[in-house]
């Protein structure tokens, strides 16, 4: 039994089932991120935990108490919304203490709690202002303050950073992370940004179409995606997926596909799992992340199996810290991530180093990973 148990929960709107038997156990102090494309049911699941949506079947328990029929305010949870949902007519201070006021906490206690939270979030100066007079980052902090002041068992966040600009997003992300490390509360966090998911979480649930596709630590999800969806959804730029054939050459398995000029390229696979055998001479999908395709000098020094391949570069995109290089493999665009200084030019052949340790294979039909 976890701290927050989501047991076989299903949600239907009318005849449409939008969540299918979702089953997640969250431990105390965990930071669970729900990630997935728009419309996959993340918010719906979060709202069900909060009690804002009814549960069609299954049950949700917090600290072993089934809360299916408990009103939101009695579940001892706090929630931070995408638009922050600050009450526009109240000052920051009133916003923060509104929940306490509703629970009948006496004024002196409320003021004390507010002062503590304001100190923690460094928003003491803002308490008298209205939300309309705050910047995006400040609003974000106030919204967190409102959640924190209630000292809840579980924090729920619904895309709290998606309204911020890129720079602020990174800062606030770090702040949330620090807060979690400092307070050690249990958090369920919804986002569709996979970087957020990776950096914040202790565990990630990747959702798609109302199903949990994979539940695991960020590293598991990134390195051993359960299927093609998870593999391509997580990571930016996305994992390159090549249509390849698995062939046996010189006693070793190779993934073989066409290069830019139409010539075949074959990359050797070492320590192939037993499951690969079944696919010899069959079509597979080869997944290689951009950072696993580099210039030879940039290749990971700890990797055991670096394969070289020469191919024509189509575009280079210097992005400051890195340079992204596009090339065509198996008829598709394939992106490589290189050091900023890599000496690579469009429309010229270039020798790419592929770290095959990190390559994964998928079944073209079921799209599940072959392992």
């Amino acid at each position, binding site marked *: 039994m976890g701290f927050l148990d989501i047991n076989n929960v299903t949600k239907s709107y009318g005849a449409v089932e939008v969540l299918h038997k979702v089953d997640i156990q969250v431990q105390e102090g965990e930071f669970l991120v729900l990630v997935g494309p728009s419309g996959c049911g993340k918010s719906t699941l979060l709202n069900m935990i909060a*009690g*804002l949506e*009814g549960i069609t079947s299954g049950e949700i328990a917090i600290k072993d108490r089934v809360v*299916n*029929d408990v009103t939101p305010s009695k579940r001892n949870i706090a929630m931070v919304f995408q638009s922050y949902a600050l009450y526009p007519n109240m000052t920051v201070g009133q916003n923060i203490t509104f929940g306490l006021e509703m629970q009948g906490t006496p004024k002196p206690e409320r003021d004390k709690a507010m002062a503590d939270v304001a100190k923690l979030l460094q928003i003491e100066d803002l308490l008298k202002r209205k939300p309309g007079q705050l910047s995006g980052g400040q609003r974000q902090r106030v919204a967190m303050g409102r959640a924190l002041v209630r000292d809840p068992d579980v924090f729920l966040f619904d895309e709290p950073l998606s309204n911020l600009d890129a720079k602020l997003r990174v800062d606030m992300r770090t702040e949330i992370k620090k807060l979690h490390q400092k307070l050690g509360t249990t958090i369920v966090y919804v986002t569709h940004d996979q970087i957020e998911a990776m950096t914040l979480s202790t565990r990630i649930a990747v959702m798609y179409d109302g199903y949990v596709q994979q539940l695991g630590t960020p590293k598991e999800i990134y390195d051993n995606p359960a299927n093609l969806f998870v593999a391509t959804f997580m990571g930016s730029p996305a994992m390159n997926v090549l249509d390849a054939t698995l062939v046996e050459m010189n006693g070793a398995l190779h993934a073989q596909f066409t290069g830019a000029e139409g010539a075949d390229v074959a990359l050797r696979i070492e320590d192939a799992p037993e499951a690969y055998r079944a696919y010899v001479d069959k079509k597979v999908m080869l997944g290689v992340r951009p950072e696993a395709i580099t210039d030879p000098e940039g290749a990971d020094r700890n990797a055991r199996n670096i394969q070289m391949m020469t191919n024509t570069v189509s575009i280079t995109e210097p992005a400051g810290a890195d340079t992204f290089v596009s090339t065509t493999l198996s008829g598709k665009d394939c992106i490589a991530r290189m050091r900023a200084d890599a000496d690579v030019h469009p429309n010229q052949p270039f020798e790419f180093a592929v770290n095959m340790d990190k390559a994964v294979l998928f079944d073209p039909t079921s799209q599940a990973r072959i392992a």
Partner: protein
Amino acid sequence: MAATDPMLGGADFRTRLQNWLPKIVLAPSFAVMVIFVYGFIAFTVYLSFTGSRMLPSFDLVGFQNYERLFRIREWDTAVTNLAIFASLYIIICTIIGLMLAILLDQKIRGEGLLRPIFLYPMALSFIVTGTAWKWFLDPAIGIENTMHLWGWASFEFNWIKDREMAIYTIVIAAVWQSSGFVMAMFLAGLRGIDNEILKAAQMDGASTFQMYRRIILPQLRPAFLSAFVILSHLAIKSYDLVIALTGGGPGNATALPATFMYSYTFTRNQMGIGASSAVIMLMTIAAIMVPYLYAELREKK
């Protein structure tokens, strides 16, 4: 947009109460509406099949009232008048309202002053409007007389005294009263158009005229629709204005279904016929409103 679904079963009392509260709060309005609107409509429909004269009576006479209704000349006049009045009123209000809105949207200095001037007639009751216009249009003392006094002897404007033209004076007064409101609706619509689209059209080389015709007006569709609905229901319901302006005259040249209905129900003691004309009016309104409401509510869902 559901904030909660009813989650019944083991829920505690407060939760259950909270779940019922919205319906409880809506219930009085709903009840009031069912009784005072739909109950009364049903009552009127029933009356239209009775031989009620001065007070409601409950002897059914079948379709007799409807048959009579359509043999009464004044009803024909009233219906014809409504067709003329409603179409002119709606068209002219829309044109004037739109034109003023467009002109007012050209970053006009003094907009703050002009807007209330255009809008204020809406604040007046139809009775006051009718009285004011009655004076203004009266050839003996109003505009025509003034023109004569100013030396324009051949000036003639006696529509209000003319059987053929009197209905148009009602149009004038009604337009005077409502066109400012229509202007406000269009102005709101214009202000809601994305400025970037206008810039894009300008980049595309559209002249101001083309910009309005091809880009802006098509986007004002919702405003057109709302204006149409509000104006048409005002037209069908218009009663006070006619009474105050022409009293239905000269003769009964400016009778409208609403005045007809009032007169038959309350003055002529033929409540059955009055009720049947009311039913016809209601059906006309429903024919306009129901499709609109249907489309509107479906879309918003």
